[in-house]
């Protein structure tokens, strides 16, 4: 794959991620999740959106989510240039 962002050592560029969890979380959790935005959907899901510094930070965040027992539904990387396109992770 020629895509340079697949290079595992290129951890340096911050990324915007969208993480979908099952259940509604109160906005009070924002700071716990490193100032991610919390959006509650009508389908009973919570979407955490925010900048994640690198892969290590992403995995740390996922671990936090796991340890709180919130079912993880989806993780998406958002392309900052065109917010409507994204690559499924």
């Amino acid at each position, binding site marked *: 794959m020629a895509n340079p962002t697949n290079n595992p050592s290129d951890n340096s560029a911050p990324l915007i991620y969208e993480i979908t969890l099952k259940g*509604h*979380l109160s906005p009070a959790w924002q700071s716990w999740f490193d100032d991610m935005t919390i959006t509650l959907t009508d389908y009973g899901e919570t979407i955490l959106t925010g900048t994640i510094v690198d892969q290590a930070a992403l995995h740390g965040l996922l671990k936090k989510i796991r340890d709180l027992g919130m079912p993880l539904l989806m993780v998406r990387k958002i392309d900052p240039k065109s917010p409507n396109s994204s690559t499924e992770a």
Partner: protein
Amino acid sequence: MSTPILLTKLYKPTPRPHLVSRARLIDSLNQSRHHKLTLISAAAGFGKTTLVSFWAEISEVPVAWLALDEDDADVARFLTYLITALQTFQATLGQKLLKILQSPPIPPVETLLISILNEVMELPENCVLVLDDYHLVDSPVIDNVLSFLVKHLPPQLHLLIITREDPNIQLSRLRARGEMLELRARDLRFTVKEATEFFNQNMGLNLKVQDIANLAERTEGWIAGLQLAAISLQNHPNPNQIIEEFTGSHYFVMDYLLEEVLNQQPAHIQDFLLKTAILNRMCASLGAALLEISEEEVQNILETLEQANLFVVPLDNARDWYRYHHLFGGLLRQRASKAVTIDIVALHLRASTWYEEHNFAIEAFHHASQTQDMDRIIYLVQGDKSPLYFQGTVSPILKWLQSLAPTVLNAQPELWVTFATVLSIAGRNHEVESKLDAAEEALKTHPDYPETSNLIGEIATLRALLAAPQFLVDTILEQANLALANLHPANTPMRTLALWSLAIASQFQGERLTARQAYAEVIALCQQTDNFFINILAHTGLGILYELDNELQYAAEIFELVVAEIGEPPLPMACEAYLGLARLAYQWNDLTTAQEYAQKSVELARQIDGISDYVGGELLLGRLKFVTGDRGGASAHIMQVEQEVHHKQFTHFYGNVATEQIRILIHQQQFEKAKQFAETYELPLSQARVSLAENNPAETLEILNAYLQTMFAQKWADEILRTQILQALAYFQQDELAPALEILGEVLHTAEPHGFVRLFLDEGPRMQDLLQIASQQQLSSNYVTQLLTAFVEPTAHPAHPSDQPLVEPLSERELEVLQLVADGLSNREISERLFIALDTVKGHNRRIYGKLQVQRRTEAVARARELGLI
């Protein structure tokens, strides 16, 4: 001395009374004795630990418990606790290994694991080891350790892992082979029936069938959720309202219910919960220090919480220690971080202080690292007698260092050095140099920094250590000397390492006196710091140096000391000491003992991956074949060794192998080839032997005289002896009796006090003749007589083995292997059954065939049966 063992980690939780009956799951768990691994993998709050502790209580097989945490990512610590947990089954299991694990660097992990598994093999009955919270050990290294354990698990031991995420240990393979029993969320959920029992019987509620069904559906049978729901229902004035609100909403179960339950608590309990949430575990004393209330009050609160099944779990029978149920801990911490009235940093400081006062160094460090108090953190890292990272605490300190900004590190250059040291201990050698460079850069900007000299010394020590495995002798010496010149005299851990590098480098260079002195110093320092591993290596090195100085008895004493220190069953690192004893036994012409020790040495050395130490032993075994008359066997054996050595490019041993080959070639009268070998590998003594065999004493003397000059200059006592003996033979060959006897006299004079025998015997009939003449001239009478007697003693080698008993009996291990061969097992199967490397099995087979005088498996089995061996 390392940090104390936390007994609470080994505590088997006592199940609470009045648990919902989970007969179907208990039945499953009872099948664990038919599987290598039982895996209980589900998110938090599915009652995993409750289930297993309940089962452990009624289990028919003995169960040991080990509760894991993040700090167990350190291999030494993990293995320490593993062994201690296994001691539940047998109190002395792995005692000596525990000692070794106390001071890094530790031997290769695989050898430790093999030793542990070998000891587990001795356990009489089926037993189960529970590893709780495996997901907390976030480490691929430990995953590999676990994989290895599972792969080689003896039949008696069964593992049970409780985790929140599947461990990375080839589960699909285990599943496919039916070696694993699994319980997952879908198995652990409460069924509606179980939920009903829970709500209406255990919690004393009287809920309607429909409500229970709704709650069960809403929570998907998630036990923690149902638990909290029950608690909140118990105390709520209007239970129906809650049920409706809850089941009709999307609120994240835990969040919603926790809020509910927390709000129902009296203020002082809420305060307690939020403040103590930062602790991994707590006792009355610690709680009191944190909240600044009385211990009695704390104990009361803890017991109240436990009774109400609210959040806390006791960690021992005496109800001294508790921890939060993992789920609640995290949520409480989140709440606490938002509570403006709570000063988290101050709490961490109080916790750190308490832990320090009670000698829990790692926990004190953990809490301190959550504050910004750099001085305190550094002080705790440095530890009482020696830094924490020298005692096995590596990952938490590494994590902390990695979290620091470069500006912080630059302001305190010793942090860079600590960083480099910890990376080095963690085996991440390629990352070390950049940190050392950064340290030096930082020091430049602090011209009057305190303890600069010591830091320079530490930097040099680390550079010496980096150079050692690469045999960069000049670098090692340069850096080690720089280190010793600069290190603070009281900086024992670093001095020991620097001296150790010096000793190794000197030894590589042949600077024997320097090496000897350095080893002696290392040993003295090791006594101070109780560093078992380096102590053993230094002693072995010293023994070898004594041997090279012809001090055979001293050498033997030291090797025997090492073997005794290591104890039984011997660890692989004992191989060098056994080899030393083998060489000495050989020199003293005790060939049976030499054989035994050489074999033992090879067996042990082959257990260590990638190390060439077994070559010495194999060469000695070849030599033993040769001198006992099995010339064909010797030749074949040495040829095999040569193949292996060249294939693996053990260049260090090329010369030794060639020396043995040349001996054989001379015997076969292949003088040209022998000469070639001797020239290629620059072996003057072998060259001399060829010339002697060709009857060319002039050439012999030319070679030897030159060599002797060099040897005198370097003071290599052993080579001097070997050279002089050949000189004597050369003069003898030239009919110059006077110089021959003069030199022989010198040799005898030097050799007698140390009991050298084979030095003379190995030179054959020519030496016998010379000694005969010498005895007639009354040169050192007793000794010479002894030697002459040795020459004529028969070393029997049967020409036709069929009716004669074995000259060399098979060792116990060889009989074991032979029995398995007779049972039809392949070499690989044998290696797996006996937990030894495949190479080792092949080595055993070679020796067995040699002893039985056969070429093939089938012949070996037949012959063994003939002799009644199997």
